[in-house]
């Protein structure tokens, strides 16, 4: 091959007297490089996006699920609990079956006789009844080649969520009673799986508005709880340290005692029949006029003036009125931030939120203000978290050993974690409400209401119906459980199976299926991987179709680009007829002559692939710059965050690279075949004679 390679390389070097061949050769290389670059960049980014989407799509569900088939629900093993006193005459869930001591709770001497059409039990050869759940559960861990699987029971129920949002809707500077709005939605209630490692990235951080709202809700008197105000608030302050406050939009009360004695502050007085009702003190002098203007638009009569102490009295002086004593309340307005320190002792005797005392420090119109202030008309601005083992926090939190926990059965009700869309609609941490569900009783169906509160938010990503999935503690889903005869594939009880690598799920599924077949349990259990889930299946199929379509398009573009090689090589063969004759006279066979031109095609393809790949690597490295340029050129965000995330994935896809390089090489070799045959057919005697 040394001879063929050295001659091929010699032929491919651009030469002045082979200008046409050199130009076509250069164009071929550029076009193929461009296509390789485009395909590698596009496939790398799409593969990254697909990976991210796949992770988001399965973020709420385990990558594998094992669910009972109809045969399970019709089996003796499942049905027998309904007629056994030992099982309290109710069917058991998977988790309950796992914990049950007896496989067969039926006692013929005590329980009523079984009807004739009652299913017969599935027995082992030794005559014992098969424990379909425990044996199914154990089979998971017998799957060949998958030793790191973990399994948990999961349950999805449904109920109607009713959330009460109590919000201050009053316009700025005015104080009106809070208004209540209701959010109502029939939702899936899914048991929260703390084995879900992706959950950390799904959970949304709490905002200061969340903490403000939670504190507000905890401060309200509740009839359904016997807990004192102090006991309700202790867990909050055990875990949250309020660092700064911000004045509320209606203004925050400033006690006269805190007014700096030697300072003059400019304010806007609200007059009624010539008497000062309130004095607003804006955070800066520049905002005085706008505050006065806003008040006048409400129909009030604002008066701008200066506040100062004189002989122990606070006076308001304006052009209209030289000095009036201020008896009314002072309000700080304009979002002033104060450093705050909670005086925990004030909690002991507090009966309402405004009894809580904070030591504050800040500036108004450049004048320092410091002192102790009640919690009234302030919003929490900045907090830091505190570690405490004294109480459990009111929000979703991570336990050092057991993973994430959703609080349940506390003074606010059962904690639920809501999808992001609820937050977008104004829900905050601490908002309360109910989940209503129906319970079958002796007198028929009865509507039940379970008090709940918002304990956190998560981002369901692209998960279809994700906006309707509410996460709760498994004990809550167990409470909401009804019968499972719904046609809705989301609702049900089963086993979630986790494995370290998401992409191994389809193989693990097959391994578990085989293990089930081996133990004759396959008629009772169905194993699905994330690609099979009813909700995600269409999306995965669509992703696959898109990828196939683009791969086909990429292949066609590559074929067109590589077809340039044919033209280039045919020109080269014509140009080198004499040299081919000379080489043949020295003993080069027709095959080896053909090989030279085949190699010319291959080298062109390889070189182009290399050039395209290097460009692609550089492009991916500086992808953010390219995206910024696209954003600038389009005048808006080129890739919407909701779909593509905050940054486009930019890791090189080895699959894409492998595909493109292999395709380019194969097509280049094929492109070299025709010119190679043409070269091999050159008759040396003719070309040498023609000289």
């Amino acid at each position, binding site marked *: 091959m*040394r*001879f063929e390679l*050295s001659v091929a390389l*010699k032929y491919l070097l651009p*030469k002045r007297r082979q200008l046409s061949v050199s130009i076509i050769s250069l164009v071929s290389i550029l076009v193929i490089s461009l296509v390789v670059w485009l395909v590698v960049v596009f496939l790398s980014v799409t593969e990254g996006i697909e990976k991210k989407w796949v992770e988001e799509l399965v973020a709420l569900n385990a990558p594998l699920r094992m669910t009972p088939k109809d045969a399970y629900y019709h089996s003796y093993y499942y049905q027998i609990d309904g007629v056994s006193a030992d099982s309290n005459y109710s069917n058991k869930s998977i988790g309950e079956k796992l914990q049950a001591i007896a496989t067969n709770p039926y006692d013929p001497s005590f329980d009523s006789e079984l009807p004739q059409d009652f299913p017969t039990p599935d027995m082992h050869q030794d005559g014992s009844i098969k424990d379909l759940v425990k044996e199914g559960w154990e089979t998971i861990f017998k799957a060949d080649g998958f030793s790191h699987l973990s399994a948990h029971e999961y349950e999805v129920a449904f109920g109607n969520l009713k959330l009460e949002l109590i919000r201050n809707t009053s316009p700025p500077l005015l104080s009106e009673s809070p208004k209540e709005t209701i959010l109502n939605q029939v939702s899936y209630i899914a048991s929260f799986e703390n084995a879900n490692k992706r959950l950390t990235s799904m959970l949304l951080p709490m905002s200061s508005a969340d903490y403000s709202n939670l504190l507000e809700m905890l401060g309200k008197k509740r009839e359904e709880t016997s807990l004192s105000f102090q006991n309700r608030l202790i867990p909050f302050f055990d875990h949250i340290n309020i660092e700064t406050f911000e004045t509320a939009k209606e203004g925050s009360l400033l006690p006269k005692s805190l007014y700096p004695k030697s300072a003059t502050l400019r304010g806007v007085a609200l007059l009624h029949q010539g008497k000062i009702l309130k004095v607003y003190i804006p955070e800066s002098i520049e905002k005085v006029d706008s505050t006065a203007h806003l008040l006048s638009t409400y129909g009030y009569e604002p008066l701008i003036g200066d506040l100062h102490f004189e002989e122990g009295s606070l006076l308001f002086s304006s052009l209209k009125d030289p000095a009036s004593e201020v008896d009314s309340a002072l309000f700080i307005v304009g979002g002033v931030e104060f450093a705050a320190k909670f005086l925990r002792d004030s909690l002991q005797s507090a009966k309402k939120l405004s009894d809580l005392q904070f030591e504050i420090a800040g500036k108004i119109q450049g004048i320092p203000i410091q002192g102790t202030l009640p919690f009234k008309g302030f919003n929490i601005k900045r907090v830091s978290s505190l570690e405490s083992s004294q109480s459990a926090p009111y929000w979703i939190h991570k336990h050092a050993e057991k993973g994430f926990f959703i609080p349940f059965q506390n003074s606010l009700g059962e904690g639920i974690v809501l999808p992001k869309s609820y937050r977008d609609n104004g829900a905050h941490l601490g908002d309360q409400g109910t989940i209503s569900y129906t319970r079958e009783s002796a007198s028929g169906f009865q509507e039940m209401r379970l008090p709940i509160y918002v304990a956190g938010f998560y981002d369901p990503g692209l998960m279809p119906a994700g906006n309707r999935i509410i996460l709760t503690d498994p004990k809550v889903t167990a409470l909401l459980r009804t019968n499972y005869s719904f046609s809705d594939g989301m609702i049900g009880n089963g086993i979630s199976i986790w494995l370290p690598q998401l992409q191994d799920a389809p193989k693990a599924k097959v391994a578990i299926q085989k293990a089930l077949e081996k133990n004759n349990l396959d008629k009772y259990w169905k194993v699905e991987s994330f690609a099979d889930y009813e909700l995600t299946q269409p999306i995965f199929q669509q992703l696959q179709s898109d990828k196939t379509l683009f791969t086909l398009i990429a292949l066609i573009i590559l074929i067109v680009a590589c077809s340039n090689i044919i033209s280039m090589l045919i020109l080269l063969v014509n140009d080198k007829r*004499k*040299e081919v*004759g*000379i*080489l*043949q*006279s*020295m*003993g*080069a*066979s*027709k095959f*080896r002559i053909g090989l030279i031109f085949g190699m010319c095609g291959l080298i062109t393809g390889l070189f182009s692939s290399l050039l395209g790949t290097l460009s692609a690597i550089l492009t991916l490295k500086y992808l953010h710059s390219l995206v910024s340029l696209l954003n600038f050129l389009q005048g808006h965000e080129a890739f919407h965050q909701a779909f593509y995330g905050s940054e486009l994935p930019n890791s090189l896809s080895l699959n894409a690279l492998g595909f493109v390089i292999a395709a380019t090489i194969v097509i280049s070799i094929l492109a070299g075949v025709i010119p190679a045959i043409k070269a091999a057919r050159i*008759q*040396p*005697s003719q070309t*040498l*004679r023609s*000289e």
Partner: protein
Amino acid sequence: MAYENKNPILQARELSKSFYYPEPLDIFKNVSLDLHLGQSIAIMGASGEGKSTLLHILGTLERPNEGNITIAGQPVTPSKAAFLRNLHIGFVFQAFNLLEDYSAIQNVLMPALIGQKPIHKGSSAHQRAQELLSLVGLDSRSHFMTKLLSGGEKQRVALARALCNDPEIILADEPTGNLDSETSEKVHHLLFDLTRKFHKALVIVTHDKELAKLCNQVFYLKKGKLEQQQ
């Protein structure tokens, strides 16, 4: 002749060649020839009699319509032709037929490269190429690109190239046809000196009677027959 009792290095039997396009034409018929090591043969004849065609057939570059050739005891078949050509035959053409993008030494080494021999500096092929270039008086120009050489120099490079693989047979087609008389004479002497020195069999196709006289035997190709001049 002293060759008669020895095995010929090249044996051609009953060679016939015809062309069918644009109209049927018999070039020669039933031509037989034996070539021995150390022997030199000149083939003369008028233009268009088929001398070069016969030379190409003898050198396995072209196939006869009938007849067969044996080189070094091996019959020439289409699959073996290139191999036998590389190993046993060196060509010298009227138009030199050097590879223009290569240097003189690269041209000389090309048959060795085709024969898959090592050609790096210090290899036996490289040493031989340098020796040959020295023998043809071009050792100082071994790295010159051949397009920069004169006609006589080019033909000397071609001669060195023909001898590179140490073939037993040298086939020369009007080797000095493109050279002036003074240069031609030098090349003639070089050609004969080297073939004698290395004990090669030489076939020359020429119109030059003086050159033909230097050969052991002179054949005439006339009206499709090859006849030896007595």
